[in-house]
C-alpha cells in the first residue's frame, strides 16, 4: 500500500495509471463476462476434444482397413497413406494433439476435415452456418414475436373465448416434440392429403437454380426453408405463449398497472409501455437459453428434411467420426450460446433501468 501511494501521489497524476485502468477494465461487466465466456468455451473444447477421441470406430483405422482391402496395400503403406491424407499423426499423444489444436485455433485454423479430404473445417462451417442461422434465427424471431404478442393479448383479456382457444392450442403444441410435429405434418398434409410434394422438401435450395440475388433464388430458399421453419416455430411458439401469458398475468397484478388505468391512459399505452414491456423482461433470458437449445435440437429436423445446416452436418460428422468437423461445430454452437447469453444481458440492461452492468458501483 505504501509503495503504491509513494509511486502515484493523487494530486500529481490526473491521468489514471495503467494499473488504475486495468483495474477499471477488470471491474467492467463486459470484460468479466467475455473472460468467463472464453473460459467456458475453452472448457467445452477440452471436454469435447477428449470425449470425441474416445468414441469407438476411429476413422483412421477405418481408412487404413479400407485402403488395405481395396488397394491391397500393406499395413505400413496404408498407415502412411492414411496419415498423409488425414494430415495428423495418430501416434502423437492426445495431450500434444490438443495443444496443437488449441494453437491452430488461436490462429483461426480449425483444421482439416477428416472425411471430406482436403477441405478446411472453417470452410465447411461457413458453408453450413448461413442455412442454420437463417432458418433458426428467423423462426425464433417469428415464434418469439408472435408468441409474446399472443400471450400478452390472452393474458390481458384472460377468460375470454379467445384466451381459452389459444391456451388450449398452445398447451397441446408445446407438449409435442418437434420431430413428431414434423412427422405428423408430413404424414397428414404431405402423404395423406397431398397438399405439398414431399420430394421437394429436401435440401436447402433448388439445385437447378444458379445462386444469385434473384427473386427466383430467394424464393427457392424460402420455399425449401419453409418446412423446417414452420416446425421450429410451431414447436416453440406454445411455450412462448404460455410463458408470456403467465408473465402478463403477474404483471397485471402490479400496482403501477392500476395507477396507469386510474391515470386514464389509453389502453394501447398501458398494453405496450406498462404490461408488455415489464412482462417481456423475464422472457429475454429464456430466449437466450432457447437459442442454444434449438441449435442443438435442430439435428433431427435438419436430418429429416436433409437441410444443409449445422445440425445435420453435426450428425453426419458424428456418425462418420469426423473429429475435426465435430469439434468445429461444437465450438460454433458453444460460442453461439455464450454470445446469446451476453446479448440477453445487454438487452435487459437496455430495457430495464434497474439493472446495471457494473453491479459493484451502484448500491
Amino acid at each position, binding site marked *: 500500500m505504501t509503495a503504491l501511494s509513494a509511486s502515484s501521489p493523487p494530486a500529481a497524476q490526473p491521468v489514471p495509471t495503467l494499473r488504475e485502468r486495468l483495474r477499471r477494465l477488470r471491474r467492467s461487466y463486459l470484460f468479466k463476462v467475455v473472460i468467463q465466456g472464453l473460459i467456458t468455451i475453452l472448457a467445452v473444447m477440452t471436454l469435447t476434444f477428449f470425449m470425441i477421441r474416445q468414441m469407438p470406430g476411429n476413422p483412421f483405422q477405418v481408412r487404413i482397413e479400407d485402403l488395405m482391402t481395396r488397394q491391397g496395400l500393406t499395413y505400413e503403406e496404408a498407415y502412411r497413406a492414411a496419415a498423409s491424407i488425414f494430415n495428423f499423426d495418430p501416434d502423437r499423444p492426445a495431450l500434444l494433439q490438443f495443444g496443437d489444436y488449441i494453437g491452430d485455433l488461436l490462429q483461426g485454423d480449425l483444421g482439416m476435415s477428416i472425411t471430406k479430404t482436403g477441405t478446411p473445417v472453417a470452410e465447411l462451417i461457413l458453408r453450413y452456418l448461413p442455412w442454420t442461422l437463417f432458418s433458426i434465427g428467423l423462426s425464433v424471431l417469428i415464434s418469439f414475436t408472435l408468441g409474446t404478442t399472443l400471450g400478452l393479448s390472452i393474458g390481458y383479456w384472460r377468460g375470454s373465448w379467445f384466451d381459452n382457444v389459444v391456451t388450449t392450442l398452445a398447451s397441446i403444441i408445446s407438449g409435442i416434440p418437434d420431430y413428431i410435429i414434423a412427422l405428423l405434418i408430413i404424414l397428414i398434409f404431405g402423404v395423406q392429403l397431398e397438399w405439398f410434394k414431399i420430394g421437394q422438401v429436401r435440401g436447402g435450395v433448388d439445385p437447378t437454380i444458379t445462386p444469385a440475388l434473384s427473386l427466383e433464388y430467394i424464393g427457392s430458399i424460402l420455399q425449401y426453408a419453409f418446412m423446417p421453419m414452420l416446425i421450429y416455430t410451431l414447436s416453440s411458439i406454445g411455450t412462448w405463449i404460455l410463458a408470456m401469458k403467465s408473465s402478463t398475468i403477474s404483471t397485471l397484478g402490479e400496482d403501477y398497472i392500476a*395507477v396507469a388505468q*386510474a391515470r386514464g391512459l389509453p389502453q394501447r399505452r398501458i398494453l405496450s409501455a406498462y404490461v408488455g414491456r415489464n412482462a417481456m423482461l423475464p422472457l429475454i433470458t429464456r430466449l437466450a437459453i432457447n437459442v442454444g437449445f434449438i441449435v442443438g435440437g435442430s439435428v433431427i429436423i435438419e436430418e429429416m428434411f436433409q437441410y444443409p445446416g449445422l445440425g445435420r452436418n453435426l450428425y453426419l460428422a458424428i456418425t462418420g467420426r469426423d473429429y475435426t468437423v465435430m469439434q468445429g461445430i461444437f465450438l460454433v454452437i458453444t460460442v453461439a450460446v455464450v454470445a446469446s447469453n451476453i446479448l440477453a444481458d445487454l438487452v435487459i440492461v437496455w430495457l430495464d*433501468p434497474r439493472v446495471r452492468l457494473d453491479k459493484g458501483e451502484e448500491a
Partner: protein
Amino acid sequence: MSLDMNKVVLSVRDLSVSYQARRGRVRAVSRVSFDLHAGETLALIGESGCGKSTLNLALIRQLPKNASIDSGSIAYTYRDGRTINLLDFDKTAMRRYLWSECSMVFQGALNSLNPVLRVSDLVYETAAAHGIGRLEALTRALTLFEQVRLDAKRVFNSYPHEMSGGMRQRVLLALSLLLRPQIVIMDEPTTAVDILTQRSILDVLKQLRAELNFSVIFISHDLAVAAEIADTVATMYAGEIVEIGPVNDVFYRSRHAYTLSLLNAAPRLSAGAETLESIPGSPPDLIEPPPGCKFHERCAYVQPICRTTPPPMVAYDSGAGRAACHETARVLADARQKV
C-alpha cells in the same frame, strides 16, 4: 377551515358493491352514502376488510372483473356546474374523467410507479392522454415538484428506483395534481413510510390543499392521521359507513359503539400510562353477515334489539353528522366522559 358547504362535488348514494368469491358472494360495500364538498377532506377509516378499498375502487370504477356495483349512484359535479352519474359513463368517458377530475394516490409508493419509465415519461404520457401539451405539462410538473419539496429537475429525469420511498410518494402526490382535479383519493398514502417521511407528506399535503383547494378522500386505518388532516370522518365497518360527521364530533362525541371502541384501542403518545381496551372477536364474514347490527357480536353496548334489527342512520345537529347505532345515547355519554 372554510368549507363551501353549498357546493357538493361528489355525492354517493346507496352504493353497494359485491364480488364473487369461491364460497359465495361477498357484499364488500353495502348502502354507502356520503357527500364530498369542495375543498373538504373526508377520511374513511376502518380496519382491513371493512370495504374501504373496494369503495375506493368503485369510486373510480376500477373494480376487478369479479366485482360488480349492485345499486346506487355516484353523482359528480363539474366545475361548470354540470352534474353526471359516474355509473352512466362508458369506457372512453370514464378514461377522460379519471385523473383530470378525480385522481388517486395509492399505498405502495414503490410499486405505484412503472419501474422502466422515467418520471418525465409519466408526466408526459399523463398529459398526452388528457390533451395537454408537453410544454404546459413540463411547467406544471416542475412547479408541483417544487411545491412538494423535491429537487424538481433531478427528480424529473429519475427512474423510480433512484428515489427513496418518501420521494416517490411525493412524486405521486405531485402527479395526482398535474391535471388540477377537483378530487384526490388517497389510499393509505402514509402507511408504508417512516414517521418522519409521513410527517413531511402530511405537511406537504396540508400546504398543497391550502394553495390549490381540492377535495380529498383519505382512506386509512390510522386514526391519528385522520384526526390530523380530516374535516369529516367516516367510520366503516363490515362494508357500511356506521358513523360520519365533523372530525371533532366523531373523535370527541362518538355516537357509534364501533367508533368509540376503535378510539379506546388507539394508544396516545401524550397520554402517559393509559388503559386501552381492544375489540374482542374479529370482523364478520361478509358472505353471511350477522343479522341486525353487524357489529353486535363484538359490541360492549349490545342490547337485544341490536341482534335482530339493523339500526337506522340517524342525523344529529341538523344534519352535520349521522350514526347508525341503537345505543347512541350511552355511547355518547361515555365518549363525553372520556374527554
